[in-house]
């Protein structure tokens, strides 16, 4: 059986193409692991983020394995497997601009966001979070995450909200990101960020969903999932209890 898997292909280090043209990253490893366990052939389709769910619904592919968080809103349209990665967000800004955006309890201080241009990727958990929590913020929407980073560097936006793991690995630790730092705590409220990142599929495919869940649990329990994370980060990206 062949299943088609949608992903962005430009979201390092989770899913991207290397100069050799190979797909690589955490999501890709998860996909390969799952494929092996459920005994299916996976075929990968690259898709811009904002069209991901419409494309799934239009049968352009059968699964989304693209670091997509399991949120209530998305679950109205599609189904998800159980989680296989934390889903969090964190605000990033220039070192030389001091700003106090969150209080001690970790809640955003709306007034302090005034006058700041916020770069976000369209149709992401970050965008929903800003829309709900800081409805007055001056938000600029991008088609992919790479552009968000580019414009932060270029100074077209003042802050961005992004995946902290990606930010740390691909940006802050590099020359390009030297002048930037996190400007607040990790945010992971379940209403916006969901229980974590899962595999998306069309509704009404419970059998497939069960298979996917089983496979993910196997990956967690066998320690494979942890090894995927450790190829990239010094820590794992999931909770062991997800394997129960």
């Amino acid at each position, binding site marked *: 059986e062949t299943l088609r898997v949608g992903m962005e292909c*430009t979201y390092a280090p989770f899913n991207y193409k290397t*100069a050799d043209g190979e797909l690589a990253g955490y999501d890709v490893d998860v996909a390969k692991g799952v494929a092996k366990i459920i005994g299916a052939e996976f075929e990968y389709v*690259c898709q*811009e983020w904002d*069209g991901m769910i*419409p*494309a799934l619904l*239009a049968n*352009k592919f059968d699964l989304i394995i693209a670091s997509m968080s399991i949120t209530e809103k998305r679950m109205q349209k599609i189904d998800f497997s159980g989680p296989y990665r934390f889903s969090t967000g964190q605000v990033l800004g220039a070192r030389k601009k001091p700003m106090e955006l969150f209080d001690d309890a970790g809640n955003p201080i709306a007034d302090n966001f005034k006058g700041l241009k916020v770069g976000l990727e369209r149709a992401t958990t970050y965008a929903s979070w800003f829309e709900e929590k800081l409805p007055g913020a001056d938000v600029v929407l991008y088609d992919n995450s790479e552009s968000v980073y580019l414009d932060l560097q270029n100074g077209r936006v003042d802050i961005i909200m992004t995946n902290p793991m990606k930010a740390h690995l691909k940006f802050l630790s590099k020359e*390009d990101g030297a002048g930037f730092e996190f400007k607040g705590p990790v945010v992971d409220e379940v209403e916006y960020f969901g229980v974590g990142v899962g595999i998306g599929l069309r509704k009404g495919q419970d059998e497939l969903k069960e298979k996917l869940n089983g496979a993910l649990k196997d990956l967690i329990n066998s320690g494979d999932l942890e090894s995927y994370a450790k190829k990239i980060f010094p820590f794992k990206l999931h909770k062991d209890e997800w394997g129960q």
Partner: protein
Amino acid sequence: MDVLNGWWDDYFWGAVIVAKVFIASLSLMIIFGLLGAAAKLSDNRLAQKIGGAYTVIFRGTPEILVILLLYFGSAIALTALVQLFNPEVRFVDVPPFWAGTIAIALIVGSYATETFRGAFLGVNPGSIEAARALGMSPLQTFFYIRIPEMWRIALPPFGNHMLSLIKDTALISIIGLNETMFVAKQAITVTGKPFTMYIVVGLIYLGFSTIITLTVMGIEKYGNRTTVGAQ
């Protein structure tokens, strides 16, 4: 230039995809254009209306919308169509290659419709009468007189349509085809050098445009031997 190390082959294969899309959509575009022109020139009111609607819709809608709509919509529409005949079929897929190819062929075909229509009208009616007076049948007249003369008139604007076609291929990166624009996005993710990466794309397209322009010029020159006095 070092940043490009390792990406050349990706660009190459991206360019190959651009070329494939171009060739496939060129053939389709000619068909759509001829059908559209035939519909608009026909005596049948319904055909005229359909031809008219075709040009209005595809010339009046931004390319990017057409591509997105066709990408998301084509499979659904086709499935519905096929299910009419065979309810067993659960799903018909249109791969992004074909969705993109058909989308740009439809867009540029709507321009070609007008070009072909004008060119058919531009054929000297005297030539057609002469052919009929010599006893040639309408069909013979169509293939031996009308088409070749129409083509001569249509060629220069048709060259421009080919250029639009090649450039529109850049838009289908939006639906994730692995062409040069998409290669650039991937490369930027890894290298963080957008200027360099997009300039390469620009140069590749400039190359394609040049080849097309030179080809059309060559054909025109060949065709013009019959319109330029050479005594």
